[in-house]
């Protein structure tokens, strides 16, 4: 698995998807879309379905390109990984952008990153001893063992299901946010 090609696939997909999203965010375009006989549910759903379609188009293009130029096939695991990463990204960034506008997406990610670091460095060491007494360590070990003993197919199946559930929840959340939106 080559990390640079995964990163490339991921980046291309994200750029195309977010570009399509931000073009429709302008007030003039959103007024236009809402004047057409489409419900807000349909407007949101079109973005989610579009994201899936764009992802597959780009992966197909990269696949063909790799095949024709390098005469080799991309491993299906890489493709799955790119799709999963894109779906996770979309699941988080779409509802956020519907609520707060996509300009603040970068700021949102930065804040989340800082929060992550803060929790890792300051909060976890403090509650570490507390977790020991709850025997959480054992439970985590048991869970991890279970996870690693899964067959490849089962593991990937699980990842796919988690992704799909996450995407579906994000979809519903976005519909709710957009339906309530005031222009």
């Amino acid at each position, binding site marked *: 698995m080559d990390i640079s090609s995964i990163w490339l696939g991921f980046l291309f997909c994200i750029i195309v998807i977010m570009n399509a999203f931000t073009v429709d965010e302008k007030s003039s375009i959103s007024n236009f879309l809402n004047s057409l*006989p489409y419900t807000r549910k349909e407007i949101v759903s079109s973005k989610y379905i579009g994201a899936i379609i764009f992802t597959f188009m780009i992966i197909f293009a990269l696949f063909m390109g790799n095949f024709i130029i390098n005469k080799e096939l991309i491993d299906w695991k890489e493709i799955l990984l790119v799709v999963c990463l894109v779906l996770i990204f979309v699941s988080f960034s779409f509802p956020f952008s519907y609520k707060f506008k996509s300009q603040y997406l970068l700021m949102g990610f930065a804040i989340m990153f800082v929060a992550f670091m803060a929790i890792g460095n300051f909060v976890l060491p403090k509650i570490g001893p507390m977790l020991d007494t709850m025997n959480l360590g054992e439970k985590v070990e048991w869970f991890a063992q279970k996870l690693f003993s899964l067959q490849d197919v089962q593991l990937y199946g699980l990842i796919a299901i988690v992704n799909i559930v996450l995407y579906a929840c994000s979809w519903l959340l976005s519909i709710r946010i957009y339906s309530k939106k005031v222009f």
Partner: protein
Amino acid sequence: MENVIELRNVNKIFDSFRLNDISLTVKKGFVTGFIGGNGVGKSTTIKLIMNLLQPDSGSVSVFGLNYKEHEKEIKQRIGFVFDENVFYENLTLAEMKQIIKPAYSNWDDNLFHHYVKTFELPLKKKIKQFSKGMMMKASLTMALSHHAELIIMDEPTSGLDPIFRRELLEILHQLMEDENKTIFFSTHITTDLDRIADYIAFIHNGELVFTKEIYQIEEEYAIVKGGKELLDRDTEQEFIGIRKSNHGFEALTANKSRIENIFGEMVVIEKPTLEDIMFYTKKGAERFV
């Protein structure tokens, strides 16, 4: 005569502004003009009619249907024309048509091409290269090509040159010869309304001052000019707004016949323009602040 749009006791509160108990009706087959100064609630009212906003209380119904249950049905029959460009700038008119066409069940390609020809619109040019007048025509074409029964326009003539404004009004006039169509447009260019509107709805500070037929306004409202000695506490109450100068006063009244009875020959009574009505209403409101 049925009402195409009906707003009943609509209230909408924002931080800095509110719409107060608006009850507005727009009758089928007529042109209703919606006037008011800047920031009085015209765009907000139009957004309520278009379901971009929901009222805090009261009801909005279009074609006798409400948005909650019949949103798509209502929008199929309405054509919106905005004052700013609402199309994807990098596409051409032909490409925009491909996007809009599947949305409407009543789309008529022949009608579309008829208007494109009448308005002399280029089909293969990018929208961002259109002039303001062309954009307006393009917007109108899209609104008309699906046999819309109701056409709503938000300040359609702002930013257009006077010649083109008259042409546009001419086009709307021709459109109205089909008695099934209704036009509702907001503007603060009152001379346009004099030319084409049948009914005028006047909104001021979030409240609907009146909805009247245009000839009724000419019969009831009048500009009164006379010497300052005629004004005293009692007579000032007769007027909506007064402007005093060195030579005398000029005022607006909503009751022409009464003023004629009170003052008779001592004043000059003139027909008011819509602009006068807007101006003196605002002046009068300021008096009591």
